[in-house]
């Protein structure tokens, strides 16, 4: 009996916070700035701290994942004598799956946690209250630029991730393993299509971006304003963000590539 009750309470709580965070997202995105110049300046600053500062980790991970994929792909494909298809394998895996998903996971760890901690600390030091008391809407001033910056940066980061991965995989397979460069690129060119592969990857990373950044800023905004509360909110951002990405990835993949 207690179990059922707890279960209902849990579901109720989940739906309640989903509703609250939905209102929160809506209000942050649709309260237009009053002074556009200022808003653009704030947005650019967030693009820097959310996007540009994530570049290093994205590029390094992309390179390593591309190299590993090339090695693994080569060792399997070479037993069928079709090692030139490693180009196709790299491009499709990265563009369709690993680019958006791994970028999303890294982004949740690097930028999402930072966003939660920053906003949580602003709450704990009464900066958000201060905006309110000044009659400045903190959703418009603090949350909206961060949301928009995150949502616009992540698809670009995912593309950079894929491009770096393909390039690093090319280095491994062509320069090291001796795949013929012409057929490496040709197999890729034949099998990668803009509207199915590249666009679907972009759509995926766009959806992941909304999920991760939404979770991150909301967790920061509603956290308990203590050091313990901020720590818990940061953890929750990373855990919930990662799970959301993996779950959404399954749904999106099923919708995009599920009909054979």
């Amino acid at each position, binding site marked *: 009996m207690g179990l059922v009750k707890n279960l209902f309470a849990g579901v109720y709580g989940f739906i309640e916070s989903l509703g609250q965070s939905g209102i929160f997202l809506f209000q942050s995105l649709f309260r237009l700035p*009053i*002074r556009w110049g*200022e808003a653009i300046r704030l947005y650019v*600053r967030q693009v820097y701290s959310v996007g540009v500062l994530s570049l290093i980790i994205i590029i390094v991970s992309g390179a390593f994942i591309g190299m590993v994929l090339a090695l693994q792909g080569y060792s399997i494909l070479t037993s069928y004598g079709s090692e030139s298809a490693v180009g196709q394998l790299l491009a499709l895996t990265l563009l369709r799956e690993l680019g958006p998903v791994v970028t999303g996971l890294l982004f949740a760890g690097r930028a999402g946690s930072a966003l939660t901690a920053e906003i949580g600390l*602003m709450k704990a*030091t*009464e*900066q958000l*209250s*201060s905006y*309110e*008391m*000044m*009659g*400045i809407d903190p959703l418009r001033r603090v949350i909206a630029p961060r949301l928009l910056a995150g949502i616009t940066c992540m698809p670009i980061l995912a593309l950079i991730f894929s491009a770096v991965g393909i390039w690093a995989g090319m280095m491994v397979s062509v320069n090291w393993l001796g795949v013929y460069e012409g057929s490496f690129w040709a197999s890729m060119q034949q099998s990668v299509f803009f509207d199915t592969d590249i666009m679907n990857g972009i759509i995926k990373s766009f959806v992941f971006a909304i999920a991760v950044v939404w979770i991150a800023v909301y967790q920061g905004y509603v956290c308990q304003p203590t050091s313990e509360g901020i720590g818990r909110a940061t953890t929750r951002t990373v855990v919930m963000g990662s799970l959301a990405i993996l779950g959404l990835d399954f749904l999106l993949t099923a919708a995009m590539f599920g009909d054979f």
Partner: protein
Amino acid sequence: MWFIEGFQDLHERNEFSWRIFYYYAVLVSIRFCYRESSVEVYIDVKNLSFSRGGRAIYDDVTLQIPKGKITAVMGPSGVGKTTLLRLIGGQVMPNSGTVTVDGVNIAQASRKELFEARRRMGMLFQSGALFSDMSVFENVALPLQEYTDFDKTMIRDIVLMKLQSVGLRGAAHLMPSELSGGMARRAALARAIALDPDLVMYDEPFAGQDPISKGVLVELIQRLNRAANITSVLVSHDVEESLSIADHVCLLSGGKVILSGTPEEVRSSTDERVVQFLQGHADGPVAFHYPAPEYREQLLERN
């Protein structure tokens, strides 16, 4: 007057700014017109009840804060002093009762009216709450940019004047993390008065300050109140500082107002709760011990 200081400096350097003169002429005339029409009670709290997390913080509290005076709200930590300021600012809403600020019922005001009312309030938060991603100058300039259409030079002049009045003109370029506690609070004060509010609320301005900073803040609060006829609400548990500058004192305890009167009345009160708070006795009506089982029994308990 405190803002005239800025004038004189500019005057001596033959840089008297007509823009600033115009700005203050408008401001003073607005205030003059308002003064004729408005009442003597600036904040009127009636039958206020408020609870948080199932615990009643205020229970049927009625208090009034006179216009143009310094009112000290005192009480032990956790009694709900900060909460009172948040109720006045409309950040939290009462469960029952009304909070009326300058004739506006805060709980029933629309979003727009509420923001309009907040524009005429300045609040100095306990931690200062300077925006950590902006310099001191930008912090003070923000409300001006948000609410006025003054051009850059004019905003700059006003910001420098506000910083001058708290003695931090030289620190305009510093980031909040580079300021000492006392400086941060003064910078926050400059920001709170940037729009020349009618009401300034100070949340524990003296907590954690050295004697010199305390003295500076006491003087600033007095000067602001006298010169610009600002209504000041000072929340504090520093008895000496508060009683020395307040015109009116409200003592809170256990969700009630236990005394409301002049500092002399507070000092001469014989109410046990007031005496305990003023003298800082460990035991009295407010017990030193958190409720616990019998000491002896708990020590002898074996299980």
